């Protein structure tokens, strides 16, 4: 039984009294006029507030677990740190509401309007947000894993560093959304609109992108899906560090970049690739055709690099390949640092040179015709040289 009846609550509010820290579990206040009311730290678990007019109401630190708030008007309400786990907010109006650090795990927000709402650090895991409006909402660092956001409107929303792993964003609209460093691993983005979205350093491993629109999306440092990508609609992607639009990727490069198979950042002639100082590539798989010339001054972490016949790979003085693997019949020169993750770090190279100041930690598996080695005094080596292994080289230098 609640501490106060609905009539008592309404009377208290009518005369301007606050209802704070009260036990109001299971209270029925559906369609009540409660604008600006204060329910700070109240226990409203299981309360029925369907269609209630709660604009600008204060629910800070209140508990509303399993509460029924469908169709409620909560515009600009303060729900900071409120516990709304399992609450039903279907069709609720939450425009401009403050839900920072609120717990909305498993809540039903289908068709709710959260435009301009503050949801930073909110927990929305497994919440239902299908058809919800989140235009311009602030969702930085929010936990949105496994949420259903099918057809949701998230244009201009700030989802920086949000966890969207396993979320369903099918046909969602994310135009110009901020998704920097967002976790989108395993997310379903089929037919989603990501026009102009900022996806720099976002992680898309295992994500599905069929039919997604990505024209003008900013993708520098993006971790690709790891699978072939097809059906994406994009005139170009922007691979510039500062999202300035100065490094456009077009054609097949779009699919390659999104899949993480090849990350193109090239200057100079077509067969030359240069990865400049300050760039960081993680978990990428790069393939370079025969005869290409590649210079790396960047930090590569956990990348695999497949070299074609006579491809020249130079790790410059500023270049660091950490936890990487180089495969194929190319020529490798290390002025910087190379550290393997999986042995052998270098397999099948026809030539390996480590110059003075360069360092290499890892194994070199020689091809059938052996590797031509060059080591300059002053290099640092922790190298194991291994003989040719037939089974590894049956696929012309492609990683296993």
């Amino acid at each position: 039984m609640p501490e106060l009846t609905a009539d008592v609550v309404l009377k208290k509010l009518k005369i301007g009294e606050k209802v704070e820290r009260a036990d109001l579990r299971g209270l029925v206040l559906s369609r009540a006029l409660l604008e600006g009311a204060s329910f700070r730290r109240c226990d409203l678990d299981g309360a029925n507030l369907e269609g209630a007019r709660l604009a600008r109401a204060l629910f800070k630190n209140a508990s509303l677990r399993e509460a029924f708030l469908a169709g409620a008007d909560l515009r600009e309400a303060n729900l900071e740190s409120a516990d709304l786990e399992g609450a039903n907010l279907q069709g609720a109006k939450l425009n401009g509401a403050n839900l920072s650090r609120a717990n909305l795990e498993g809540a039903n927000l289908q068709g709710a309007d959260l435009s301009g709402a503050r949801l930073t650090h909110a927990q929305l895991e497994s919440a239902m947000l299908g058809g919800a409006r989140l235009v311009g909402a602030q969702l930085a660092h929010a936990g949105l894993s496994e949420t259903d956001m099918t057809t949701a409107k998230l244009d201009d929303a700030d989802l920086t560093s949000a966890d969207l792993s396993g979320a369903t964003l099918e046909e969602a609209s994310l135009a110009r959304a901020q998704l920097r460093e967002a976790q989108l691993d395993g997310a379903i983005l089929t037919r989603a609109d990501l026009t102009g979205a900022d996806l720099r350093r976002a992680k898309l491993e295992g994500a599905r992108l069929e039919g997604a629109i990505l024209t003008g999306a900013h993708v520098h440092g993006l971790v690709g899906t790891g699978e072939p990508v097809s059906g994406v609609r994009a005139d170009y992607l922007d691979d510039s560090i500062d999202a300035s639009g100065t490094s456009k990727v077009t054609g097949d490069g779009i699919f390659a970049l999104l899949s993480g198979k090849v990350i193109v950042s090239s200057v100079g002639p077509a067969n030359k690739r240069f990865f400049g100082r300050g760039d960081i590539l993680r978990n990428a798989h790069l393939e370079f055709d025969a005869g290409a010339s590649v210079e790396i001054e960047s930090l590569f972490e956990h990348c695999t690099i497949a070299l074609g016949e006579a491809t020249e790979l130079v790790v410059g003085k500023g270049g660091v390949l950490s936890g990487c693997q180089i495969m194929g019949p190319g020529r490798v020169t290390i002025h910087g640092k190379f550290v393997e993750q999986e042995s052998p770090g270098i397999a099948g190279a026809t030539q390996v040179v480590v110059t003075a100041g360069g360092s290499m930690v890892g194994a070199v598996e020689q091809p059938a015709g052996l590797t031509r080695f060059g080591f300059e005094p002053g290099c640092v080596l922790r190298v194991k040289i291994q003989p040719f292994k037939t089974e590894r080289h049956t696929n012309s230098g492609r990683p296993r």
Partner: protein
Amino acid sequence: MTDPTSDRKTTVEEGTQFKGSLSSKCPVEVKGRIEGDLTAPSLFVSPTGAVHGRVKVGEIRSQGEIAGEFDANIVQLSGTVKDNTIVRAKSLEVKLSSQDGKMQVVFGECSLEIGADPTQAEAVARPPEPPAPKATSVRPPVGPNGA
């Protein structure tokens, strides 16, 4: 070779095979074959020479065949490094041969531990390795005749 005041050296001539432990205060030149432990200021292995065993020297220049465990300050390698060989040194030089020319050095299955320990970041990605041998002196490379 290592002592400018003396041109004395220990030579194992071509056709000679030595088995056992050899400790010398003179540079050692091997044109024949040594199997065993060797300690000396320096070791030169000629193209016809072979050294199999555990070697501790200040400097190694090998154009022949080596196998075993080699500790030195300075190592210059060409020729052949056989399977199950470990080379530990402060400095290693292997000259890169021309693309079409003969291999400068043919490496079997071996381990090279050269220079200071890798940086901390490198160490994270790989279990720690034993430290490189401490240098006692560094002398310039000299010819096989010890001059």
